[in-house]
């Protein structure tokens, strides 16, 4: 029985916005935690600033607070709610850090709140390097030689004793922020300086590098009765030296003998016992590949990205079990939800292999430093399950959605040998392809092992695939499609090679290959993830495909539908789409329809085996999806909630004769095909910025000439504004057309007039006839900044009655004309008092979760019912605009710039943010204040502002700066801006531009003399090195940097309100919705 009987009301802290190092895994963990606690009759109070999460739905916790995750706000909520216990281990590092601060400030003691799961001392022991080292020495567990420093000189002194390479790890940061490997004194100084700055306690660990050793992780759970189990171990394909979040990982370990496995398991158990954790813990170890020597690298005393992966890899719900343990249950009292018979006190046995590959954002940030090291850079990850490593790897690669279906990357065959070897040695995101190319070129396994430190076992398996590729290519070259015998096809499939890759390798038509395969009767079977390697009968329908004999996924006779998920989290396609997929599933289940989810993202709620009736953990490409559909025979497929991933599957599925539920494919295409869409707008007489599609460089130039600069240029069919830019003249246009895109009739480029104005966004739900608009949002930043990077305010404040009526009219007519059944998202620009349509997405959008939460309209639920044929009237909704409430909700973007070197932080049409937060209040400036605080924008109340603005912005900036001066800010500016400021009669100190010599702007940023930077782009998109360096310096020194005057104006108004003594309130979702 639970020991902690007094704990009736529990507060759970979420992890806030999605950033690199902290993604959807904490929504999955937190949602499970809330559900598990309520299952045991506890009242749950949840705090999280991220509106795109399932956990912040009103039905997940009893009291949901969407408020900033700062000690100030959380303390207020604690004082209001008076919970008995605080569970801080489900919200990642953010949750843990807040708990530490609240405990240290005495808030928990004052309010009598018990810290659940992990004791405060333990959090400190695991996080504070010195305490950790002392504890490891006490229990006799080895750690690398190291020292803790709080200044750079001490780091250098240690290096003189131990030698290089050395690893620098700042204490208390996320995903290794600010860490790195130093090979010499200069590198050490640079990394240590930055690391000390970023560490919450200004401490860094400098440690002997064990780079090249095997990196192994164990997920461990302990209960209050000191029962300890390991859920899963994992082996990184990439050796120590690359952050585990950036490594390809397999579960279970593959190259460890039982002795090594048990040795490391025993060490992990010893550590969780010494730490006294009641819940989950992650232990990372390095194992010498040539001996039994090992060292402990890191311990996370909480659930983590790895525990989400381990949960999905094994079927063991770590967060759920950890939450029950936190309120006093022991492992032998908690049922194993998968078998329904056994208990949580056991260790999962896998009879398959799991492969995880990170998803990096370098498709969006072409100029970013893409080398992988101790600083995590991936935004998300995919997981694949199969019975061989080869097949798992191949599935994971095609799940990434990077346009690659096998081991060959376009252009890598032409890479010079030296460059290829460098790519293999100093890993970047494309290393796996470089390794395969090395094998193709005849590099030996030994030499590849030598330079990459990837274990020979993995290299041999990659070679199996490469060898088969060669055999296939040559066989078909010699004998045509007759080479594809049943045996060859079976081997291909057992290696995980998809039809499309066979087609790419051989030049044969994919459809023909598919038919050949079908004629052989070669279909995958589906096996169950059951936690026990078939030893017990399992009740949870969680499946993966494999080419073997026995199929365990026996379809039911029920009405059923497939919901396609959205794959890995990436910039432009985040957790919002998982939120939508999950809600669609819930809505279908309400209607009595069996739901089948297909997805490959292990971090998400959608891939929790409890979410749908059946979960298929599979790649989202036509072949894999069709195989499932052919087995399950659903009524149709829902594509509008899984982002662009799912929408892109609509056409191939429809071509294969599969019914797409909701908006017909023809109209999806009409909304996405530029020419057809322009035609439709003309017919409907709805204005849009002038512009057309160009299929050549000359064509683009002609269009630009005709409509006039500036113009917005982008390839058609884009995701998150990829390669979208505003160009101001013919030179810039030419440069864009020749370098950024590869224009052709097959790959047209859209050229539109760039209209400056307010951007307005709506999401609407239609049953094909009536159209409901739950809300209108307005962006703070003028059009030209990607909608995903803009601050959005609901309800819109700038539209007059006529404009609002126009907007409702346009939206309604567009939805009808596009035969929308379900959701549609439309973006408008308000230019010279006239609304123009700038973009239409015939699917759910990024703003749906946010809008659903603040309006109380369960948008996905309603949309799903429209898809099933219900009408808005039947559900009790009126046509048109839903009445707005009397409060304001602000959605603000969150960026991960500190983790991505060489990425420009300025905002533009290309999306750069990784996540979002929401602030809401009855007062606009307080809602804005909350959103900014939640976004981590640490706005100083006083101090020094560095202003460097473009000529075109100089008039506009003066009143803004005057406002700041009135609040007591000091101004510093470079010559041009300084001149304008002093001419306006404001006090300003001039500072040197970079080329004017030291001390210059960069120096004073580094010296910590600047508290806020206002920097606007000088001329169009011309690379302005000073500006770029100022922005990077600000990011790297954690100083807020504003690149839009619209944002700056709003921040000024917030500061003015605070100055006037305005205060905010904290209200749970449940109260303002009622």
């Amino acid at each position, binding site marked *: 029985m639970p020991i902690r009987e007094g704990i009736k009301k529990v507060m759970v802290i979420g992890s806030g916005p999605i950033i690199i190092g902290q993604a959807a895994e904490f929504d999955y963990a937190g949602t499970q935690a809330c559900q598990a606690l309520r299952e045991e009759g506890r009242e749950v109070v949840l705090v999280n600033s991220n509106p795109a999460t399932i956990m912040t739905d009103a039905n997940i916790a009893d009291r949901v607070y969407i408020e900033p995750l700062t000690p100030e706000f959380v303390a207020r909520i604690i004082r209001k709610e008076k919970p008995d216990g605080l569970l801080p281990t489900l919200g990642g590092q953010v949750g843990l850090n807040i708990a530490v601060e609240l405990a240290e400030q005495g808030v928990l003691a004052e309010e009598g709140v018990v810290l659940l799961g992990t004791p405060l001392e333990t959090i400190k022991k695991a996080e504070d390097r010195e305490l950790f080292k002392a504890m490891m020495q006490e229990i006799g567990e080895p750690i690398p030689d190291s020292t803790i420093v709080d200044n750079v000189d001490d780091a250098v002194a240690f290096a003189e004793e131990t030698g290089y390479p050395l690893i620098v790890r700042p204490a208390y940061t996320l995903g290794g922020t600010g860490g790195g490997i130093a090979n010499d004194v200069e590198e050490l100084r640079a990394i240590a300086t930055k690391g000390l700055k970023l560490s919450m306690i200004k401490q860094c660990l400098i440690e002997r590098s064990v780079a090249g050793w095997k990196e192994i992780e164990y997920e461990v759970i302990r209960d209050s*009765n*000191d*029962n300890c*189990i*390991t859920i899963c171990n994992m082996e990184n394909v990439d050796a120590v030296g690359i952050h585990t979040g950036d490594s390809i990982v397999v579960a*279970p*370990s*593959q*190259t*460890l*003998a*039982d*002795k090594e*496995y*048990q040795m490391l*398991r*025993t060490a992990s*158990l010893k550590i969780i016992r010494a730490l006294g954790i009641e819940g989950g813990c992650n232990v990372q170890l390095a194992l010498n*590949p*040539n*001996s039994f020597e090992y060292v402990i690298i890191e311990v996370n005393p909480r659930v983590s990205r790895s525990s989400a992966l381990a949960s999905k890899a094994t079927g063991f719900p770590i967060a759920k079990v950890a939450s029950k343990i936190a309120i006093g249950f*022991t*492992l*032998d009292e908690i049922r194993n939800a998968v078998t329904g*018979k*056994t*208990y949580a*006190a*056991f*260790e*999962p*046995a*896998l*009879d*398959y*292999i799991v492969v995880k590959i990170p998803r990096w954002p370098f498709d969006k940030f072409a100029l970013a430093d893409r080398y992988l090291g101790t600083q995590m850079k991936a935004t998300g990850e995919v997981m694949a399950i199969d*019975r*061989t*490593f080869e097949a798992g790897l191949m599935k994971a690669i095609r799940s990434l959605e990077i346009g690659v279906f096998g081991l060959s990357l376009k252009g890598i065959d032409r890479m010079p040998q030296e460059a290829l070897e460098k790519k293999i040695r100093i890993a970047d995101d494309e290393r796996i392809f470089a390794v395969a190319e090395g094998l193709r070129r005849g590099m030996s396994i030994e030499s590849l092992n030598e330079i990459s430190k990837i*274990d*020979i*076992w993995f290299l*041999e398996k990659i070679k199996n695939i490469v060898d088969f590729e060669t055999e296939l290519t040559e066989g078909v070259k010699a004998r045509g499609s007759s080479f594809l015998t049943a045996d060859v096809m079976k081997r291909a499939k057992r290696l995980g090679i998809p039809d499309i890759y066979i087609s790419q390798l051989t030049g044969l038509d994919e459809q023909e290959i598919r038919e050949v395969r079908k004629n052989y009767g070669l279909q995958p079977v589906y*096996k169950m993830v059951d936690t*026990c*390697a*078939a*030893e*017990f*009968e399992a009740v949870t329908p969680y499946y993966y495909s494999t080419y*073997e*004999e*026995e199929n*365990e996924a026996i379809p039911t006779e029920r009405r059923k539908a497939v919901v396609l998920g959205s794959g890995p989290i990436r910039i432009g396609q985040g957790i919002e789409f998982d939120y939508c997929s999950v809600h669609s599933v819930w809505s279908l289940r309400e209607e009595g329809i069996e739901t089948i989810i297909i997805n490959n993202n292990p971090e998400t709620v959608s891939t929790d085996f409890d979410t749908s009736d059946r979960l298929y953990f599979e790649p989202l490409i036509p072949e894999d999806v069709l195989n499932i559909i052919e087995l399950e025979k659903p009524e149709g497929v829902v594509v509008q909630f899984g982002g662009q991933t799912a929408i892109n599957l609509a056409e191939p599925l429809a071509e294969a004769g599969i019914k797409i539920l909701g908006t017909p494919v023809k109209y999806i295409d009409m909304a996405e095909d530029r020419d057809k869409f322009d035609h439709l707008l003309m017919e409907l007489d709805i204005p849009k910025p002038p512009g057309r599609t160009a299929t050549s460089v000359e064509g683009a130039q002609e269009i630009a000439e005709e409509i006039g600069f500036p113009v917005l240029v982008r390839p058609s069919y884009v995701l998150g504004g990829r390669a979208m830019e505003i160009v101001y003249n013919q030179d810039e246009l030419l440069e864009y057309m020749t370098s950024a895109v590869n224009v052709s009739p097959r790959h047209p480029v859209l050229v539109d007039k760039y209209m400056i104005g307010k951007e307005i966004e709506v999401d609407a739900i239609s049953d094909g006839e009536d159209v409901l608009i739950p809300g209108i949002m307005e962006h703070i930043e003028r059009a030209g900044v990607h909608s995903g990077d803009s601050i959005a305010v609901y309800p819109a404040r700038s539209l007059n009655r006529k404009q609002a009526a126009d907007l409702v009219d346009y939206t309604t007519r567009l939805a009808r004309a596009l035969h929308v059944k379900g959701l549609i998202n439309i973006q408008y620009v308000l230019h010279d008092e006239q609304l123009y349509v700038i973009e239409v997405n015939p699917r759910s959008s990024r703003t749906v979760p946010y809008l659903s939460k603040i309006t109380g309209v369960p948008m996905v639920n309603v949309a799903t019912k429209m898809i099933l044929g219900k009408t808005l009237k039947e559900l009790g909704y009126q046509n048109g605009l839903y009445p707005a409430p009397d409060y304001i909700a602000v959605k603000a973007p969150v960026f991960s710039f500190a983790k991505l070197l060489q990425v420009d932080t300025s905002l533009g049409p290309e999306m750069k943010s990784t996540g979002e937060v929401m602030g809401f209040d009855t007062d606009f400036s307080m809602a804005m204040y909350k959103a900014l605080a939640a976004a981590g924008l640490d706005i100083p109340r006083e101090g020094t502002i560095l202003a460097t603005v473009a000529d075109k912005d100089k008039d506009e900036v003066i009143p803004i700066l005057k406002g700041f001066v009135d609040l007591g800010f000091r101004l510093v500016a470079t010559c041009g801006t300084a001149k304008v400021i002093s001419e306006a009669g404001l006090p300003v100190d001039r500072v040197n531009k970079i080329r004017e010599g030291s001390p210059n702007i960069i120096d004073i940023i580094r010296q910590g003399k600047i508290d806020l930077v206002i920097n606007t782009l000088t001329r169009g998109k011309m690379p302005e090195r000073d500006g770029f360096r100022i922005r990077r310096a600000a990011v790297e020194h954690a100083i807020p940097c504003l690149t839009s005057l619209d944002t700056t104006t709003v921040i000024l108004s917030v500061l003015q309100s605070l100055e006037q003594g305005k205060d905010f309130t904290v209200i749970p979702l449940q109260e303002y919705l009622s």
Partner: protein
Amino acid sequence: MKAALVLEDGTVFEGKGFGAETRNFGEIVFNTSMTGYQEILTDPSYCGQIVTMTYPLIGNYGINPEDFESRKPFVLGFVVREFCELPSNWRSEKTVAEYLTENGIPGISEIDTRALARRLRNHGTMGAVIATGDSIDVAEMKQRVIGHPDLMGSDHVLKVTVKEGYTMPNDGYRVVLMDFGAKLNIARSLHDLGCEVIVVPATTTANEVLALNPDGIMLSNGPGDPENVPFAIDTVRKLIGKIPMFGICLGHQVIALALGGRTYKLKFGHRGANHPVKDLATGKVHITSQNHGFAVAADSVSKNEVEVSHINLNDDTVEGLKHKSLPVFSVQYHPEAAPGPWDSEYLFGQFMQLIKQERR
């Protein structure tokens, strides 16, 4: 090389052969351990059995010279989804296939081992024949195996026990290890605690054991049905109460039978490294390594001065016994691990404590 596995119920699995080219009849079982195939292959308790590994990738880290659990492998066949031809580990000296070939054991790979494990789970352990070679005759194999459940024989302990005893000298307690098919790590574990370990054949009599003047007696694991070793039961009956005694696996079952208890065959046994066992005295759960097809009936011992000390959390079966007044205790699982978790190593320490108490 071709290979086939035919079960007593007529189910045929055809795959790729590895190891020796031969044919064997035996009882087919499955093991869910993800590591430790070398220890499993050489665990004498598998004598008479064809072993299926549910983990699909076997042989990844090869065979090393250190992790053997007996002088040779006693399994009759090895069934895997995929075996690794190019292993990778610093201690590896050869592949699993090479090792099986050297020892005349057939292996089959490239079959749906999960389908096989599910069949055994649903229908129970059964007889089977495994054959390798390009001229195998599946029809004939079927004829030979269908309807012949008892292909195992009953004299396994005598096959695997040492022919002659030997001593591992040390300066601590003297422990006689009765070898019913002992895994080497039992002797190693005792030796590591300072014990002088005298390993004796399973047929050693009570008087012969007493003549060695031991401080403690260790009864080992071993293959088959405990009722097949009446001689050992008799020996143990005579020794109980005289010398502190600790039994593991078959040793545990023999103690139960010697104390008047009863054993029965489990549907498909416990074979793996993840079995949760609850210590009823402390309420603590340990993850244990297991390999047994028989179990002690709980109700058969409770009336006789013996208490059930441990149970399996998965199916509530008896996992440990303790005599209320005499210095005897036993466990069904493997505290010596190899393969499997090291969580129960402390039981050897308890045995030392028991010896110490008795000597006082």
